[in-house]
């Protein structure tokens, strides 16, 4: 029988995968303003593969499950996103290694680990106009809500709102990492594709966990 933690993790990963696939065109469009227009395509192809292999992933625990997901992402997503998202999932997996149950604080720890992984891999930080600019404030908001004892749905909602606000705010930043950085000042005026994707994913997770 699946543990509660595996069921939750499955729910989150599946929601991320579905969001990526459904938003393929929208994410591509965002990436084509100052990037090369393939962000949505890369994510969608990778997460399609995740859903294809859905039934065969090892579900011993959440950590092992996330590790197999990370492997599929790393081996199937090309471009910048493959290594970044693969690293993020791998680090999140490591953060809960050997744990049977995963609570709100664990989720925060997983996100923090994922963020560190992205920073290491991407040699990037908050302010560089990347997905970090949405992921970090969202994690901060989640942490506060969890600490205040909010329900997970409520905490997610706070995180999603923070992500959206921060993603929108990336419009005013000049890209300093990734392909968009080549455009210099021309990157100012449109939001970062990866940051918007983080907001869209969190918004959908919020709605879906309410309906659950």
């Amino acid at each position: 029988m699946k543990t509660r933690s595996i069921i939750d993790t499955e729910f989150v990963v599946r929601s991320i995968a579905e969001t990526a696939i459904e938003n393929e065109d929208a994410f591509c469009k965002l990436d084509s303003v100052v990037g090369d227009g393939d962000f949505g395509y890369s994510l969608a192809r990778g997460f399609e593969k995740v859903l294809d292999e859905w039934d065969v992933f090892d579900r011993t625990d959440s950590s092992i499950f996330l590790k197999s997901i990370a492997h599929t992402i790393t081996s199937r997503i090309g471009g910048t996103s493959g290594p970044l998202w693969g690293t993020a999932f791998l680090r999140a997996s490591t953060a809960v290694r050997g744990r049977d149950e995963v609570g709100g604080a664990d989720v925060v720890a997983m996100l923090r680990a994922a963020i560190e992984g992205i920073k290491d891999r991407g040699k990037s930080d908050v302010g560089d106009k990347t997905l970090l600019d949405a992921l970090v404030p969202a994690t901060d908001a989640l942490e506060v809500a969890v600490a205040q004892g909010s329900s997970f749905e409520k905490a997610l909602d706070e995180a999603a709102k923070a992500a959206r606000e921060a993603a929108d705010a990336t419009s005013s930043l000049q890209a300093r990492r990734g392909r968009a950085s080549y455009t210099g000042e021309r990157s100012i005026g449109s939001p970062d594709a990866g940051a918007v994707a983080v907001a869209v994913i969190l918004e959908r997770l919020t709605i879906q966990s309410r309906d659950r």
Partner: protein
Amino acid sequence: MKKFINDPKNFVPEMLKGLALANPDTLKYVPEYNLIHRADAPNADKVTIIQGSGSGHEPAHVMTVGKGMLDAACPGDIFAAPPVDYVYETTKLLASPKGVLLLVNNYTGDRMAFEMAQEMARADGIRVEMLFIDDDVAVEDSLYTIGRRGVAGNFFVMKAVGAAAEAGADLDEIIRIGEKVNSVTRTMGVALTACTPPAKGSPLFDLGPDEIEIGIGIHGEPGRRRGKLVSADEIVDDILGAVITDLPFTSGDRVALMVNGLGGTPISELYLLYGLAHEKLVSASITVGRNYVGEYCTSLDMAGASITLVKLDEEIESLLAAPAEIPIRVF
């Protein structure tokens, strides 16, 4: 979008399949990893040379796999670095006791994928080194980017290290050569039109009917600036000038001059550009020792061109002149 395609998702595999069918004796195709490799590789007496990068730049790099150049190429999808696994599996499959050199165009995605794959392969005990190519003068190296991009000048690095590897040089020697060639190679491009990636189905960016993008990247990334469409003469002045002053190339230098088409520009226009560039070099007392006119590194169907200069010395010139047998040929 008007292209010869079936399903956009199968564009790269179908192209690779055609390439393999057209070269049954010399190339092998491994569909799982978008891998094209020399039928006679790996060779225990020779360092293995591998190039990855995104697709959409053909003939780079899958069509320059062959004796005297690459042992293998494992491209990602259009304009996307290959997934880590492609590079890792390719490295494992083609590993030689003399070592493996991974040639990487300097882009975030490519760097990350190759670095991860290198780490994994090294953990397996494979000797594998990496060489970054960054010849594009359009992007300034600064704290705020990962540095210059690798564009059409990668041809010269591939050709030189390929020739050295074929001649039996060891890995350290090959890296020395590759770094040297990269350090004296400079390129700048200009786009007349945007390209249309098959999966996107529409042009990657908007260029007005009389606008051009100066310093364009090979994935359609913006360059130094937008400009008005001017005469071929003025365009050559502009981009050749940027290339010359960057190294800088100076009076008395002997160079290789490449005029590279970006995919949608016919070879007639490339020769016209060549003539203009050649004459401008002559009047700057720079000697053209070797020349290259055609498509070497494209951006799908983009109309445009780039100009590359390589400062020649005896060693580089003889490596560039060495024979090679690759799919891009007339006979």
